[in-house]
């Protein structure tokens, strides 16, 4: 079953084409990452799926609804974390959750949600006293309080310190284990690689690559071999690493020298991503 199905989605702002015909499917229970640089169309895409924006062309199905026309029944089933938003500074963490819980037919237990996002100790603290990372967790808690089937996370860890990012990742993994479908946008590659079952790389309004993180890195076939010789760095890129490495090693052995600083690495998602997003700019 598809939770989200998008066919040839297009959107322009004036003469600027933000989305130039993108298509993808997200299965139920899947974590799908939309990856791309700023201005690639990530937020436009997610906001069309959330029902905030209208589309110019294409078919969009989210949980069986057309988000453009959907009403409360659709919103009962989605949770949204916006890229930039704040909540009422004078309410406490628990009050903020209770207020949002009241909007849903079947909300989750407020204290349970607060525990899930790791704010139990801050339960009765005013929102204005929370740190940036804690506020972002509050955003996530508020998105989960309606017990949604589908959660939209628009750059959920932008501005986090490394520890807070790890904590957020664990939280997102725990959502996945609850069977929620998650659509995540990010410009952090490690985040996409860590969290997403599948991802699409978006550039200038087009999806330029799609697949699992392993497929994306596997799709690029070259392996890099680095070593130093006579004080110079040598880099060999090859599609046959076994043979090349064997030859290099045999040669070095025969001459009685060491392959100094030898590393053999597969391209990371970051290499693939940078190569993909750089292509057009050259």
């Amino acid at each position, binding site marked *: 079953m598809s939770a989200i199905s998008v066919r040839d989605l297009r959107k322009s702002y004036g003469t600027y084409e933000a989305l130039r015909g993108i298509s993808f499917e997200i299965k139920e229970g899947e974590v799908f990452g939309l990856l791309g640089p700023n201005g690639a169309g990530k937020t436009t895409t997610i906001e069309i799926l959330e*029902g*905030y924006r209208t589309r110019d062309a294409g078919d969009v199905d989210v949980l069986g609804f057309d988000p453009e026309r959907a009403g409360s*029944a659709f919103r009962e089933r989605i949770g949204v974390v*916006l890229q930039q*938003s704040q909540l009422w500074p*004078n309410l406490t963490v628990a009050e903020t959750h209770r207020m*949002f819980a*009241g*909007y*849903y037919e079947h909300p989750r237990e407020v204290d349970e949600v607060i525990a899930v996002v790791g704010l139990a100790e801050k339960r009765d603290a005013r929102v204005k006293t929370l740190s940036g990372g804690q506020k972002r967790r509050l955003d996530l808690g508020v998105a989960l309080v309606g017990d949604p089937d589908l959660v939209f996370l628009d750059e959920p860890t932008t501005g986090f310190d490394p520890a807070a990012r790890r904590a957020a990742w664990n939280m997102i993994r725990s959502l996945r284990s609850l069977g929620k479908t998650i659509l995540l946008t990010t410009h952090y590659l490690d985040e996409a690689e860590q969290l997403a079952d599948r991802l699409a790389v978006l550039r200038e309004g087009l999806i330029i690559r799609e697949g699992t993180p392993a497929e994306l890195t596997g799709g690029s076939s070259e392996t890099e071999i680095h070593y130093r010789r006579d004080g110079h760095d040598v880099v060999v890129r090859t599609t046959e690493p076994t043979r090349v490495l064997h030859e290099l090693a045999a040669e070095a052995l025969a001459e009685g020298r060491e392959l100094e600083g030898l590393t053999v690495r597969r391209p990371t998602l970051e290499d693939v991503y940078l190569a993909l997003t750089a292509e057009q700019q050259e």
Partner: protein
Amino acid sequence: MRLFRHQLRWEQRLFWRSRESAVFVFLFPILLFALLTAVYNGHIDGRPASWALLAGMIAYGAANTAFAGLAITLVSRREIGILKRIRATPLPPPVYLAAVLVSITIVFAIQVASLFALGRLLKSTPWPGHVLSLALALALGAAAFAGLGLAITGFIRSLEGSSAVLNVIVLPMAFLTGAFGPTRHYPQVLRAIGAVLPLKYLLDLIKGIYLHGQQFWDKPLAIGVLAAWGLFGMVVALRTFRWEPREG
């Protein structure tokens, strides 16, 4: 209805918990009344000055609460993304706006009751005679100013400027229309400006009812002008109201 009651309860909690709104929106007209009655003596419009000032502060309170207070609340929520966030929930936008409007009306009603009680305490001002007429006049005034308050949010771009912009509108309006004292000795041009502003007509209604024993419907011109301003506000609001901050 359940959603409306839920939101109304939370709107009230949000209002009274915020020091800014409790002091500047609720308390300010009451403090101003205490101050003005201490410096004005004698008579205004053939009634003790404190009576007329009480009518003036109620009218000013309507503009301050239903227009400026409402607009600041909505602009601040829009700019920090709360309005957008609310739109992703099952709470229907009309229910949300209705709860916000009714909440601000409750604040205004408590403010009016407090003004009457304070007037009684400080200057032995009488309780209002025609309570139903007064309630109708205040409801119309609050509705008209709320319509204008919704309309102006579309023209305020940032939270920082909002209270300055609104005070630049509300305070001169209160002076020009006589809410802070008689305008008899004002230059003709200032009085002419005052004569087109909605606050003048709300003040006329309140004074007629409270000071001169008239009924609500004895002032059809004032009712018509207020209703027209309110409708104008609603029409503009329908075209310019935004749920999201402006991009970029």
